[in-house]
């Protein structure tokens, strides 16, 4: 009886529920000092002076450091692809380019004194011209980096085929925004560092990639990697934004070295809203063409990516967007070009989906417009254009190869669960009656890429003479439940009880290498590595058992029901794992296997989401009535964990469609820098979800599993967005930009009804 595919409760939970997790700020660090950062209050300015005289004179303030004091290099480019002139400095150097940019580090005996000292540092600025709008930035009229001669940090110049739409009877165009959002993990950024007695840098980080942090610290602080020890305790969410290393992390490490005392840093939420990387931030021009019968023949998207003030990972998000250009559709011709530009705002980074939600949002929105143009039901249009299940592996026009899928099955199931025909009937009834509250139904068919980066993963399994199993993994869970999931995989292979398995992650001394957790990679590479190590340990155990039993290797049986080995035919004479491990120890060896699994390659989960919303046409307020999600991530190892990932993704996706946006004024002042102003979605705005999985196992990896972590977000946003637009389409509204806040919805209705304005509801 396999444990895989069963609803196994999380082993992590009892601790979290009774005493709480141990996050970086919870770590005991006797004698530690606190760092806080002076941050720019200007979006673009030359730093004339930083006067920390009063601050340094305060009792309890140890030091105030600026970039010149650190003498550290700038950050590198992103994989060599971004403009070298636009990489961030450690602390602001001469010029500040976004509100919130760190200018100086204050080190004090306590958090309280550090915050008091913040008020005593006086920064004098000489304002420079602010560029907030990426469209304006693209004109290069005002440059953030005069030496670069441009504001473009990265571009993908593909396409330009003038004939793309030649044979299209119907062509529809749209310019739409995929707005800037803030990842907002509940735990903000936090780090701590101290020098050990043997001169190593001990570092704790709230990160998604401990080994990445180790390597970055080593590089910046000129240390050998083995002179740095990173231990990542519990992490309160990351969502992609904690995959990068931030200047503050390096400065904390530097301070520990410089001062010889333990140093800790935990930002405030207000700082995090400005300093933690933002997500999305694309302006998209899309064009779709096809026949009146609903065959989509051509699609083009041009992406303008807002990089923020420096070229971080956000600059290359369009790379991922481009990979998923044509979505789950068999569109024969498709192109994607992109331009990433710097603006005087927080740098953008990966955020749940990282470039793929943007691709899906664009194609799904314009599919609805195309359906409207040819007077076809949007579900029917999708049905006609989805890639057929027998056509995999499928190569798209941008040369992405989708592994396997049954897109029609997901669509059909979603429509069935939603009761689609009844919903449309209700919509007709309300429209005919002219109800104030109109019904909107929105679909989203998506496919996305998981494990898209080439990194392999480390996994190790050891059985000890006391019967305990130690698993080590290079993944770095921050809520995903890997301890439970990897325990399940190992228990399945070894036939041991889950309670006897310990899973170790996040300690770079104990786990020698790892790529961390992001991009929905962990199960298919990390879990697969642990699984392989478990398989290898079983093989070693059988070798050992053969010796002990003096039997043929092929006659050794592992009875997984009780985790004991015997010779075929004589099950009563069996040995336990503990006994075998003990025998190995006596021999001077160990029952142990270590695997560096090369990445088996990316996989492509898919699905269909359907959103049902109600729009108050008098105020523009939108209520989400239902959300149906059918997702296929190949083989589901833990339905409990997979469902939880979809739930969390849906909430963030709905939030982007309806509520959340990072807003700057024209001077680059952030207007949404607290959780009171930023519309972080709550339980009161959401329904319970109706989720289903279909399982189309992938041939790409041994587990048959795809990633699921970002699917919920990718699939949900366009469904909700389409639903809102659908609710008011009969009033003449063509499109409303996200987030579809009450004022935007109402303005679109008002414009359409009065014949004024652009009826786009855009900015």
């Amino acid at each position, binding site marked *: 009886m396999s444990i895989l595919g069963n609803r196994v*409760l*999380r082993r*992590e*939970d*009892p601790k*979290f*529920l*009774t*005493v*709480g*997790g*141990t*996050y970086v*700020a*919870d770590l005991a660090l006797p004698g530690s000092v606190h760092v806080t950062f002076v941050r720019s209050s200007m979006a673009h300015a030359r730093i004339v002076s930083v006067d920390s005289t009063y601050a340094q004179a305060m009792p309890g303030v140890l030091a105030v450091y600026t970039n010149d004091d650190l003498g550290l290099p700038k950050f590198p480019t992103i994989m060599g692809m971004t403009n070298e002139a636009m990489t961030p400095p450690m602390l602001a150097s001469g010029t500040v380019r976004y509100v919130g940019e760190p200018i100086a580090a204050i080190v004090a005996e306590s958090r*309280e004194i550090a915050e008091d000292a913040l008020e005593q540092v006086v920064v004098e600025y000489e304002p420079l011209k602010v560029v907030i709008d990426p469209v304006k930035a693209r004109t290069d009229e005002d440059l953030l980096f005069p030496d670069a001669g441009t504001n473009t940090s990265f571009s993908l110049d593909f396409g330009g085929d003038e004939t793309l739409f030649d044979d299209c009877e119907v062509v529809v165009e749209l310019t739409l925004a995929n707005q800037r959002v803030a*990842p*907002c*993990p*509940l*735990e*903000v950024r936090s780090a701590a560092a101290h020098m050990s007695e043997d001169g190593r840098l001990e570092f704790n980080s709230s990160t998604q990639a401990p080994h990445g942090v180790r390597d970055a610290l080593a590089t910046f602080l000129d240390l050998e990697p083995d002179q740095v020890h990173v231990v990542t305790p*519990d*992490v*309160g*969410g990351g*969502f992609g934004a904690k995959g990068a290393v931030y200047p503050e992390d390096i400065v904390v490490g530097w301070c520990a070295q410089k001062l010889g005392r333990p140093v800790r840093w935990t930002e*405030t*939420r*207000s700082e995090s809203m400005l300093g933690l990387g933002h997500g999305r931030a694309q302006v998209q021009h899309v064009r779709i063409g096809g026949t009146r019968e609903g065959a989509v023949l051509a699609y083009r998207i041009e992406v303008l990516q807002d990089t923020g003030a420096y070229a971080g990972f956000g600059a290359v998000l369009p790379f991922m967007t481009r990979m998923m250009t044509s979505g789950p559709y068999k569109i024969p011709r498709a192109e994607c070009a992109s331009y990433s530009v710097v603006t005087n705002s927080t740098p953008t980074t990966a955020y749940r989906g990282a470039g793929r939600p943007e691709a899906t949002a664009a194609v799904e929105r314009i599919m609805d417009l195309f359906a409207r143009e040819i007077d076809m039901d949007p579900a029917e249009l999708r049905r006609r254009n989805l890639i057929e299940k027998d056509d995999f592996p499928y190569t798209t026009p941008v040369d992405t190869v989708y592994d396997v899928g049954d897109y029609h099955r997901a669509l059909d199931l979603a429509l069935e669960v939603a009761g689609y025909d009844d919903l449309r009937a209700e919509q007709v009834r309300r429209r005919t009656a002219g109800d104030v509250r109109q019904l909107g139904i929105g679909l989203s068919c998506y496919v996305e890429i998981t494990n898209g980066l080439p990194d392999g993963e480390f996994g190790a399994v050891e059985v000890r003479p006391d019967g305990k199993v130690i698993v080590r993994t290079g993944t770095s869970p*921050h*809520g*995903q*439940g890997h301890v439970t999931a990897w325990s399940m995989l190992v228990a399945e292979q070894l036939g041991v009880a889950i309670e006897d398995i310990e899973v170790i992650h996040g300690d770079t001394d104990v786990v020698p290498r790892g790529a961390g957790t992001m991009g929905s990679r962990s199960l298919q590479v990390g879990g697969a590595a642990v699984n392989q190590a478990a398989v290898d340990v079983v093989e070693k155990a059988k070798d050992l058992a053969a010796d002990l039993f003096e039997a043929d290797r092929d006659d050794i049986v592992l009875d997984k029901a009780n985790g004991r080995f015997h010779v075929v035919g004589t099950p009563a004479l069996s040995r336990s794992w503990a006994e075998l491990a003990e025998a190995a120890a006596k021999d001077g060896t160990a029952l142990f296997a270590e695997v560096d699994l090369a990445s088996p390659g990316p996989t492509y989960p898919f699905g269909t989401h359907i959103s049902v919303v109600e729009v108050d046409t008098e105020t523009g307020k939108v209520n989400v009535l239902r959300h149906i999600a059918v997702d296929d991530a190949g083989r589901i190892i833990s339905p*409990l*964990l997979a*469902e*939880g990932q*979809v*739930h*969390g*993704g*849906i*909430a*963030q996706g709905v939030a982007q469609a309806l509520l959340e946006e990072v807003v700057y004024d024209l001077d680059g002042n952030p207007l949404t820098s*607290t*959780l*009171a102003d930023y519309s*972080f979605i*709550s*339980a*009161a705005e*959401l329904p*319970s*979800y109706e989720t289903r999985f279909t399982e189309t196992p992938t041939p790409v990896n041994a587990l048959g599993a795809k990633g699921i972590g970002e699917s*919920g977000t990718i699939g949900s946003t366009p469904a909700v967005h389409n639903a809102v637009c659908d609710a008011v389409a009969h009033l003449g509204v063509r499109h409303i930009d996200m987030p579809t806040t009450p004022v935007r919805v109402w303005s679109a209705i008002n414009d359409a009804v009065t014949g004024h304005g652009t009826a786009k509801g855009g900015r």
Partner: protein
Amino acid sequence: MQIDITVNGTAESHDVEARTLLVYYLRDAVGLKGTNVGCDTTSCGACTVLLNGESVKSCTVLAAQVAGEEVTTIEGLALEDGRMHPVQQAFQECHGLQCGYCTPGMVMAITSLLAENPDPTEEYIRLGLEGNLCRCTGYHNIVAAALAASQALEMRQ
């Protein structure tokens, strides 16, 4: 100033500044790290504890304001025999947590909510959690846990 507060049944007495927020009194002076700080605008609820049995956001209370009163944190919620409180138990069974950061606040908020309304509807629960933000779970399982806990608590009566 010396501030005495009963925390999880234990009389605590600590010398803290007047400006010390209750959440930092609990975390730093008493040493109970379970209660978390998630924001600086009283928005997220991660810091929720029980004050005389009622949920409050401990980041928006000065320790001085509650001198002499009774505070319960996540660490003090377990039953007398050491078993998990029905709300904690329901969170485990319903997969109501992922990263765990919002969890202590959620659990305390729901405990208080159920004490005031032992038989809430889903809508009531969702509205009652308007001040408790979670980024990981999408709330679905948290709401399920609250409903399950209300059943379990009713059965215990």
